[in-house]
């Protein structure tokens, strides 16, 4: 990780780990999400991430459909997961 510009070039879903941790008590980047659009199952860390410190849009690594949107505002935090059929959080290894 390092500083990067807020451009249209996507990063990896892994970059949204800190933001997601504000809502989820477990690390979500190693969780598998199933895309409603195409059925692809991928770790959140592998999806395409658009956005910055204030919010993120995660798109399916295969079909680019939006699987998760999260935005932080001064009033609170929005999470939308219409594009995710389910989320599988694996047990800890070791």
């Amino acid at each position: 990780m390092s500083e990067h510009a807020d451009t249209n070039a996507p990063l990896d879903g892994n970059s949204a780990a800190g933001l997601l941790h504000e809502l989820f008590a477990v690390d979500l980047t190693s969780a598998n999400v199933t895309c409603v659009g195409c059925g692809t199952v991928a770790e959140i860390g592998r999806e395409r991430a658009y956005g910055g410190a204030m919010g993120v849009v995660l798109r399916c690594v295969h079909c680019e459909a939006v699987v998760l949107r999260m935005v932080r505002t001064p009033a609170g935090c929005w999470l939308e997961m219409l594009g995710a059929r389910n989320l599988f959080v694996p047990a800890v290894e070791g």
Partner: protein
Amino acid sequence: MPATEAVAAPRRLEWLTATVTDVIVETPRVKSLVQDVPRWPGHRPGQHVDVRLTGEDGYQAQRSYSIASAPEAAHLTLTVERIEEGEVSPYLAGEVRPGDQFELRGPIGGYFVWTVAAQGPLFLIAGGSGIVPLMAMLRHRAAASVAVPARLIYSSRTFGDIIYRDELDRLMARRDGLEIVHTLTRSQPAGWSGGMRRIDREMVASAGFPSSQRPRTFICGPTQLVEYAASTLQELGHEASLIKTERFGPTGGVG
């Protein structure tokens, strides 16, 4: 794993105060900050932290930085490259002195992570400061004294831009199964025996492991390098699920 194992131990992220104990100049643009972080919960190689700086007027800027130190190390170390027009890195990689404090939270991210328990072979590809999370993996591998076969391809602009150059030499001199290939894309010193071009298919194929060995592969660096290396490996028959990437954004990006 035991059947009673809970789903990833829930833990709330909280902001901690880091006190810089040492500043190591790695290259003209890169510094490592060795820190004391009370209540640091420990980490796994490849994870990162969020750093938050607060100005006197209350303005806050936040960025993510990879952890460079092994979990076995006594202190947490971040390595930061100075991005000229950045908000955070000019301070962290420029003005920070021992005794200075800032806020951080972590460790963050369980996806781009490798421990010796995950076994190998371990194949690492880095561009520029993309070496940082991969160095945490190599330091961990050395500290754990586990001779997991490992290979690193590391692309830098010039000889002077190679981060951790001496330590990488020492790690390879242990002859415990680690091979390192450097490539310099902009200029090379006289007598340079490493690569002299951007990472390409031939380099990935010859310096890496065959797909039949199913290497755990981690690629970190500028977007262009990461995407090229990841797609090349898939063309060479490597499973996508074994290739993990961490993009830094556009090449030469500012932020």
